[in-house]
């Protein structure tokens, strides 16, 4: 199975082509929110460098949230734009699960988090899995205090990933959780979700589970709204 994957749900963007569960080509960019200009050229570049054409693809996989509002829209729009005229089916992958994917063999709890500002994260918790991380919770927008309560109850080593790993680690260091539990924060760029993970997850779900791809018109973004508590938006007049 050939998969073209597109990922632009965070500050980074990437595209990848995989063939039968192996990465053929991947491009990654970390240059601010320039996705509206860079994502389509990235997708074209991976196809070209893989020596393949769009019509060789069996499915177009895309992260359909949560994350940056404009980023998720741009990825979804590009996936639909490429899929529809070429009658290629699509498949949505959680950006959180994509961030957790490279760490799927880690013992303990894998917490993939994206920064949702004001000490909140888009997150989900996983444990180790063979082909995909095993999900313990659904993607949710929660406070770091809630995340900490979950981790304290589990009382297992934690691997943090996602672009919110740093804010989460800082919070857990201040709160004392980091001295109570063994918390690992991966170094460098591997915290970011990558299109190769998106493609490999899509390949796994479509080849080894009963999940099926979607016609592009049914592909929907899954936005999560961080809680604004009782805060008013407007100034008191």
């Amino acid at each position: 199975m050939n998969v073209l994957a597109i990922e632009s749900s965070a500050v980074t963007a990437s595209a990848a082509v995989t063939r039968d569960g192996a990465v053929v080509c991947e491009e990654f960019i970390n240059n601010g929110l320039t996705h509206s200009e860079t994502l389509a050229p990235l997708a074209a570049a991976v196809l070209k460098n893989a020596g393949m054409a769009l019509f060789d693809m069996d499915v177009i996989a895309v992260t359909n949230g949560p994350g940056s509002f404009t980023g998720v829209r741009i990825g979804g729009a590009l996936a639909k734009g490429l899929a529809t005229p070429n009658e290629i089916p699509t498949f949505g992958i959680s950006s959180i699960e994509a961030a957790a994917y490279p760490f799927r063999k880690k013992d303990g709890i894998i917490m993939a988090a994206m920064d949702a500002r004001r000490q909140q994260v888009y997150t989900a918790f996983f444990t180790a899995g063979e082909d995909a991380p095993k999900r313990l919770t659904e993607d949710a927008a929660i406070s770091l205090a809630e995340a900490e309560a979950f981790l304290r109850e589990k009382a297992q080593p934690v691997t943090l990933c996602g672009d919110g790993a740093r804010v989460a680690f800082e919070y857990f260091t201040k709160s004392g959780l980091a001295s109570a539990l063994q918390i690992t924060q991966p170094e460098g760029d591997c915290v970011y979700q990558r299109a190769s993970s998106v493609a490999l997850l899509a390949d796994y779900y479509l080849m080894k589970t009963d999940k099926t791809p979607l016609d592009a018109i049914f592909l929907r973004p899954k936005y999560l709204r961080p809680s604004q508590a009782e805060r008013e938006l407007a100034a008191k007049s």
Partner: protein
Amino acid sequence: MQTFLSHSPAETRDIAAQLAKNIRGGAVIAFRGGLGMGKTAFTRGVVEAMGNTAEVSSPTFAIVNDYGGDPHIYHFDMYRVETWDDLDSTGFFDYLNDRSILLIEWSENIENALPEDTVFVEIARGKEENDRIITVRYGKDDN
């Protein structure tokens, strides 16, 4: 806090250009004050002073105009933004980063989403018809 007196849209533009000298990527400039006060003239002054040649117009319908450039300039009109969901769907939070300059009309509507170091520009009517009193506050504490 600084106060300026302008007698014309052209002067408003010059005052804005002067202020723009101290503005860097990451700045948020929030306007307070009603219709016809010269918010667009002020914005034009800032955009020109940044060496940006984009055509400035009020983003009433688009909600956000993208003027490009380096730093990248975005011009918002929050008149129709009423809820946190509305604001989220403008992509506002994606634009808040240290490479961009945001100029925001009707900022009262999103007061509590503005960063602490927002520069507030209040434009009020002066004695003569074309007179404007421009008050600039640096940060939410500068009141």
